[in-house]
């Protein structure tokens, strides 16, 4: 039973795909990097982020975080602040220093029209594959919507510049001020494939009376003018029409330009608004009034000036097929005063006719959804120009996909849709488990004070500090990473797992077998360390082997002479969360070896005894403490196991006091630890004297 087979089985990754990862257009390993942040391993977290996201620092600012909507922690209290954690990883992990090494593998040159997120992402991945890539940008500076559509306070331009510089260092050529009017010319110039990602930069209008009055603008032009550094005139009373992210940005920008009173009018009810909840909240915090459920009938004017808007009540926005089809109550009129109106009611692409591309509904380019090919050979399209206005992360995702499809095309391969090997975590968490999970409130990223932020176009969201970031990351439930009865034939159905689980996850099925549903398990590892048959394992291989690996390292390290070797099993989450242990970890006192563990509930009795084989004089276990632990009562399990270990070492001629359990949040933790070390040293000294005699 414990032969080579089980050794091999132990290395298999059995984790399931968590809902956050499933929701992410880039399919990022969110759970993995959040867990690494919780352990204080920021550089590694950033590496995981970079693995699937070409521009993490951009996403860290502007991602609409669909992952948080799917986060199962939301069922318990509030979702994990994933985007803010990414921002933390990017800022503290040294993303600015990352350089991607590339070389020319292939000769076929690829042209990318448009330097928006989709274009940049496509260029990045094609370059990584080894293609020479040229990006053509009509504007003065590259970045597309990232530069002209997103205000400085949301995405600082320096972040964008940094990412673009990284691309040029990778050998990607970016030609600005180069509008492309004909694709044939590019083919003639020797480009073998073209990716058209010109975005949706044309602001839509409603086609209502009075729209052509001065001081009536469309949102995207308004933002573009600000972003390009033009002098934008602003009214005193500004009304923004629209409920999406652009509308919110326009409203916030108006305030920063000096408008005295800003109001948003939108068709949708508050819960239907396409803008993110946090965006809406920020608008409200800054004193912007939002009128939900109104459509605009006409712009009222007085001579050549805007006077206000005539509004009609909107009854419903979507029809029964969930299509945009607003219904109004024409009789319910109301008015709003304004001297400037910004319509942020959507954008559409403008595709040059000379491209000879087939255009579909809403002026978007028609493409095959799998291959991204257009009606012309060798021409691919993606981004807002195909989908209509969408989020940055979706554009990055299409860019990545386009790079793969272009590679398939140039290498004459059949375009295979990539599928993740991981099975998604399908079922919901049970109510019983939800109740047992400790409620920990979400740490929102700090914002600059309101008065300070409304005056300037500066990013107002601040980064977490280490402590908050780790506390926030610890809230992750590690969905799909939990325990599993790995070797069924070993299970003696002793029901220990059923009895020890603090979350009541394992149960007996109708056949009388124990089941651990992956949708409920939160990977605390207690059943794993208690199972007498050792049939249960955690789904992630590195979780299974971590302590063994560390003990092996200890065995191979050079012993400190003259000092008693003391082994400390310290909660990795607590190591960085609390000051006392972190200082200890970075400057280990002589003769002390710290083994970081992912929760002290995972330590087994055997682990506590094995250091004595390596001539250790004492063992201590330090948990992250009741107060900051993401779980309840893990320490009880550790203490119980420590009792058993003490019993065993007492037979082996060691004093029971050589094993001790602390929690790192205790007030006099450091003092107690010092006392422990002193005690062990004394024991060693007296023993040496005795033996010497």
């Amino acid at each position, binding site marked *: 039973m414990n032969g080579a087979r089980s050794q091999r089985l132990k290395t298999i990754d059995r984790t399931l795909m968590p809902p956050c990862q499933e929701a992410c257009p880039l399919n990022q390993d969110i759970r993995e990097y959040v867990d690494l942040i919780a352990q204080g391993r920021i550089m590694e977290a950033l590496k995981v982020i970079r693995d699937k996201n070409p521009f993490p620092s951009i996403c860290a600012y502007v991602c609409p975080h669909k992952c948080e909507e799917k986060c199962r922690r939301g069922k318990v209290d509030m979702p994990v602040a994933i985007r803010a954690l990414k921002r933390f990883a990017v800022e503290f992990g040294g993303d600015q220093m990352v350089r991607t090494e590339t070389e020319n593998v292939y000769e076929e040159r690829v042209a990318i029209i448009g330097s928006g997120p989709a274009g940049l992402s496509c260029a990045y991945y094609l370059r990584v594959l080894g293609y020479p890539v040229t990006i053509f940008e009509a504007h003065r500076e590259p970045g597309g919507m990232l530069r002209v559509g997103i205000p400085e306070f949301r995405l600082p331009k320096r972040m964008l510049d940094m990412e673009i510089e990284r691309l040029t260092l990778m050998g990607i050529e970016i030609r600005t001020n180069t509008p492309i009017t004909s694709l044939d010319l590019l083919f003639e110039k020797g480009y073998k494939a073209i990716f058209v990602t010109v975005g949706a930069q044309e602001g839509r209008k409603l086609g209502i009376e009075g729209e052509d009055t001065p001081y009536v603008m469309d949102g995207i032009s308004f933002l573009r003018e600000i972003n390009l550094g033009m002098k934008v005139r602003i009214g005193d009373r500004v009304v923004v029409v629209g409920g999406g992210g652009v509308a919110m940005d326009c409203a916030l920008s108006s305030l920063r330009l000096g408008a005295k009173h800003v109001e948003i009018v939108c068709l949708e009810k508050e819960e239907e608004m396409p803008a993110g909840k946090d965006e809406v909240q920020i608008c409200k915090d800054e004193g912007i009034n939002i009128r939900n459920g109104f459509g605009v009938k006409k712009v009222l004017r007085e001579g050549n000036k805007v006077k206000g808007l005539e509004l009609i009540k909107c009854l419903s926005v979507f029809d029964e097929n969930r299509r945009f089809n607003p219904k109004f109550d024409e009789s319910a009129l109301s008015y709003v005063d304004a001297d400037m109106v910004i319509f942020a009611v959507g954008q559409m692409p403008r595709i040059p006719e000379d491209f000879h591309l087939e255009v579909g509904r809403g002026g978007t380019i028609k493409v095959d959804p799998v291959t991204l090919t257009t009606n012309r050979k060798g021409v691919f399209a993606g981004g807002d120009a195909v989908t209509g206005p969408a989020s940055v992360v979706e554009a990055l995702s299409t860019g990545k996909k386009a790079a793969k499809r272009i590679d398939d095309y140039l290498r004459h391969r059949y375009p295979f849709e990539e599928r993740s090997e991981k099975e998604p975590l399908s079922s919901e968490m049970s109510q019983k488990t939800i109740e047992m999970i400790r409620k920990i409130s979400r740490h929102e990223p700090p914002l600059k004070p309101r008065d300070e932020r409304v005056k300037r176009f500066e990013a107002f969201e601040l980064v977490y500090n280490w402590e908050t970031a780790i506390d926030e990351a610890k809230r992750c439930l590690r969905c799909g990473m939990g325990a599993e009865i790995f070797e069924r034939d070993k299970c003696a159905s002793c029901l220990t797992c059923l009895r020890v689980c603090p979350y009541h996850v394992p149960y007996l099925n109708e056949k009388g077998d124990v089941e651990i549903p992956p949708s409920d398990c939160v990977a605390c590892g207690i059943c794993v360390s208690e199972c007498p048959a050792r049939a249960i394992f955690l789904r992630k291989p590195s979780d299974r082997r971590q302590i063994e690996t560390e003990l092996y390292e200890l065995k191979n390290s050079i012993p400190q002479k003259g000092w008693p070797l003391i082994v400390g099993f310290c909660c990795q989450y607590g190591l960085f969360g609390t000051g006392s242990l972190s200082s200890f970890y970075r400057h280990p006192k002589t003769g002390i070896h710290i083994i970081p563990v992912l929760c002290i509930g995972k330590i087994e009795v055997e682990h506590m*005894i094995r250091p004595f084989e390596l001539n250790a004089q004492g063992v201590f276990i330090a948990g992250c403490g009741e107060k900051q632990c993401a779980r309840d009562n893990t320490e009880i399990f550790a203490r119980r196991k420590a009792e058993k270990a003490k019993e*065993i070492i007492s037979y*082996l001629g060691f004093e029971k006091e050589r094993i001790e359990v602390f929690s790192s949040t205790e007030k006099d933790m450091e003092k107690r630890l010092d006392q422990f070390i002193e005690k062990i040293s004394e024991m060693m000294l007296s023993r040496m004297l005795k033996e010497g005699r």
Partner: protein
Amino acid sequence: MIVAERKPLDEIIGMVRPFKNILILGCGTCVTVCNVGGEREVSLLDAALRVAITKGMLEEKVISQYTVKRQCDKEFLTSLLGKAEEIDAILSLACGVGVQVLADTFSDIPCIPGVNTIFMGAQPEMGVWDERCIGCGDCRLFETLGICPLSRCAKGILNGPCGGSKNGKCEANKDVDCAWLLIYDRLERHGQLEKMRQYYPPRDYGRLRRPKRVTIL
């Protein structure tokens, strides 16, 4: 289920001392359930013996570990046949039955018991085991409505309670419920209190004669 407890480590150390090459053999059934002889305990004992070696309490040894599904059937032990040649002694963590089957199967190798087999019992709460059956061969649980006076009464009397029952507890051990009071309560609940007046003749002690053997077709 058969319940066993760990033998004191010093006793085990004493027994394994003369042997160089030791196999610690766990059993994946009863002793795994009562957490004294499963794979986890095997590996824990291995670690403990290695510490003893480092400490100089034992001489250098070669220790290997293995766990079989059940030691009380020799078919499960045949997988060990190939390995047995290099082994000087097997330290078995199975119940007494398992150790004997093991010793019969490997009659040339000394088999050392690593646990004390104590009774047949059940687990009223996590980590606690109570005796529930003495294997008397003459089951009377029908009359007592599922409470065995032989295993649960300190005196094992068939016509109880005795005069020592006080506040529902046994005079021999104040932490233990009086089995006959439990029987009384249950009979009352079932409306069969008249059974308390019934006299139970002495048991057939002939069935307790050892060694027992039964042929089941």
